[in-house]
């Protein structure tokens, strides 16, 4: 296993981790969207590195697909949603220092949980899987603690990125069809959420999901 491969892999994983932690930190949605785009680039680099290392052309094509979807299309769609009034800043239920500490705890948990997995094949590639699990858990945390619809979408993207990282690092790529299916799922979910936020916005003048707790006839 060449040294450059390990370095590129670790650097991409580190960048993904950094951007995930920063999403908890930053309130302005336009910056959040930029971070998600950066994370998409890092994910594409990660997949591209794995593909280049394994001489897998299909995986290489997939890396370009991921780059296009996660670094350009999704951020573009998110930016369109986030320009609506009342969407400029996120409004976390848990304050920022607490959620950052929670992220640290989640990272520790995922390192502990994936230890048996890493022990199976202790290569550099598998060693980075805790990063993927951490991202997925942070995404779940974002889903739980953010009220705005856009932040919920960002949490959803984080979960998807985390799952993708784990999949590519442990199996050197799931079948193309499966990956395309999951990627299109996310795209579809975001399109649906975009329409949904428009509807919520039109009815309530706000996209605070706490307003949706009460049922009415």
């Amino acid at each position, binding site marked *: 296993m060449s*040294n450059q491969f*390990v*370095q590129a892999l*670790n*650097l991409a*994983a*580190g*960048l993904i*981790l*950094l951007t995930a*932690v*920063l999403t908890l*930190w930053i309130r302005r949605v336009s910056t959040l969207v930029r971070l998600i785009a950066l994370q998409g680039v890092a994910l594409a680099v990660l997949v591209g590195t794995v593909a280049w290392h394994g001489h897998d052309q299909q995986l290489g094509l997939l890396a370009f697909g991921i780059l296009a979807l996660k670094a350009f299309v999704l951020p573009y769609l998110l930016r369109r949603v986030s320009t609506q009034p009342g969407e400029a800043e996120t409004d976390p239920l848990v*304050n*920022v*220092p607490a959620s*950052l*500490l929670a*992220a*640290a705890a989640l*990272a*520790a948990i995922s*390192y502990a949980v994936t230890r048996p997995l*890493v022990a199976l094949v*202790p*290569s*550099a590639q598998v*060693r*980075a899987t*805790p*990063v993927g699990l951490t991202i997925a858990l942070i995404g779940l945390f974002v889903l739980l603690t953010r009220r705005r619809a856009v932040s919920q979408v960002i949490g959803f993207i984080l979960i998807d990125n985390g799952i993708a990282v784990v999949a590519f690092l442990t199996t050197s790529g799931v079948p193309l069809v499966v990956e395309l299916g999951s990627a299109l799922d996310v795209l579809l979910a975001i399109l649906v959420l975009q329409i949904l936020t428009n509807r919520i916005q039109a009815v309530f003048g706000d996209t605070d999901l706490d307003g949706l707790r009460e049922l009415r006839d």
Partner: protein
Amino acid sequence: MTVFGVVTALLQVVLVAAVGPILVGVLRQLRARVEGRVGAGILQPWRDLIKLLRREPISAAGTSWVLILAPVVLMGTSLAVAVLVPYVSTRSATANSSDLFAVVALLLVGTVVLTLAGLDTGTAFGGMGASREITIAALVEPAVLLAVFALSLPAGSTNLAVIVARRVSDQAQLASPVSLLVVVALTIVTLAEAGRLPVDNPATHLELTMIHEAMVLEYSGRDLALVEWASSIRLVILLGLTANLFLPWGVATQAGALALLVGVVAFLAKLLLFGAVLGIGEVFIAKFRLFRVPELLAGAVVLGFLAVMAAFFLVQGSG
């Protein structure tokens, strides 16, 4: 203890002490130019210092020896750190003592002494500034320790000279995820500790936003000159440490006059680069609300923590 080691140690103190006010001057000049002003020139802080050093210090009625002692201790600890940290060479006479914990403790002693002086004057602003400074210091210290601890794991030592020497010889470490996380954490910490923009505004004299300035309001003459000089030295210390950890090129790892010269030039160039980035970056950001500052520093702590974990799980055994 070789002659080279002693010369290096002395050179580092003189260099850092001389460059401190000039760096502050460069930052102010850059800011002035970006804002479309002419600026006072990069030597203005030195002119101010020389003017103040000639003036008699006046202590307010009711102050104790703490007020007089504080500038001396602050200056002493700053110069001690300037000797210890490997700025120009990793083979200085004091390299064996340049332990991470010693350096952080020395910096903290300076901070605490200055807050005591702020309290000693008994003014509202002094106390307010001291309370804010110590709040920030309490949050900064764990972040610094965690961040540099992450870098010390691959080197197997908490000695800064060993860490820097290891990073010079093994350049693959520079682009590792650990470095990536630590560089963000250390940058935030440097800004907070040196009282730079999103945390404290060094140019302000507006009572509600002052932190550092509020503590030193009662100082005058020589004492004020010492405090200002020591603050500028602390800025050099922190920026220089960050610069040498992430761009360790040029630091002398061998003895010799040429290596030393390269070390000095490289150090000044790195300082200028980091100072320029800081000076221009500061124009575009506003000061944080005081209650947002813990968020910023909590982020630095978490990044430091993640870096330690990454150093432990990702890097060890895989390289």
